[in-house]
């Protein structure tokens, strides 16, 4: 698999439930970022976690990073229909370029 692979590829939940998306990567990183993309739109930055951090919160978002396993997870709590989107993890290396995963398509049913 390539750098920054998410699973699941697709996730369908009911409004109010929690959504968990996972990301794995292969090389060393400076940080890992999560982005959201609504259909046909640009990428919206959600949260950045540095390589020396293990957990970070922002509102209903919780991100974890395990550098020993080269993995990260994004948890969205109390999901809303408006959270329906594709979610991408992206790793940043020393060269400052982002390497994106394939994304998780999240559908939150009202």
């Amino acid at each position: 698999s390539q750098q920054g692979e998410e699973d699941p590829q697709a996730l369908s939940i009911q409004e109010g439930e929690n959504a968990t998306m996972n990301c794995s990567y292969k090389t060393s990183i400076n940080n890992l970022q999560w982005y959201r993309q609504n259909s046909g739109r640009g990428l919206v930055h959600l949260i950045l976690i540095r390589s020396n951090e293990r957990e970070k919160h922002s509102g209903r978002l919780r991100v974890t990073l395990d550098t020993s396993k080269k993995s990260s997870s994004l948890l969205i709590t109390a999901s809303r229909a408006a959270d329906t989107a594709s979610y991408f993890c992206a790793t940043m290396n020393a060269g400052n370029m982002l390497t994106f995963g394939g994304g998780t398509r999240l559908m939150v049913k009202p």
Partner: protein
Amino acid sequence: EPEVTQTPSHQVTQMGQEVILRCVPISNHLYFYWYRQILGQKVEFLVSFYNNEISEKSEIFDDQFSVERPDGSNFTLKIRSTKLEDSAMYFCASITDRGNQPQHFGDGTRLSIL
């Protein structure tokens, strides 16, 4: 909040023609990027640009592509002799400085090659 703006939102071009995609990064940002996303695929890095020169480029960014910052505000991606497989969303991003900062993305230009 300042935004990265991209024009046009949709560009339709005949195969073999040249296209120029335009981006206005956030005004105090110093590093600029182009990425592309072929429909249904991953977002892929093309090129980064700093201090009026290319910092890094991917294998995708071959001689068909070029970037330029013609003035203090615009950042352009030129694709010469377009091919069908160049059809994709092209995203511009900018960042204030290197390090642990999020990249700010524009809404993209959808390029359709006929």
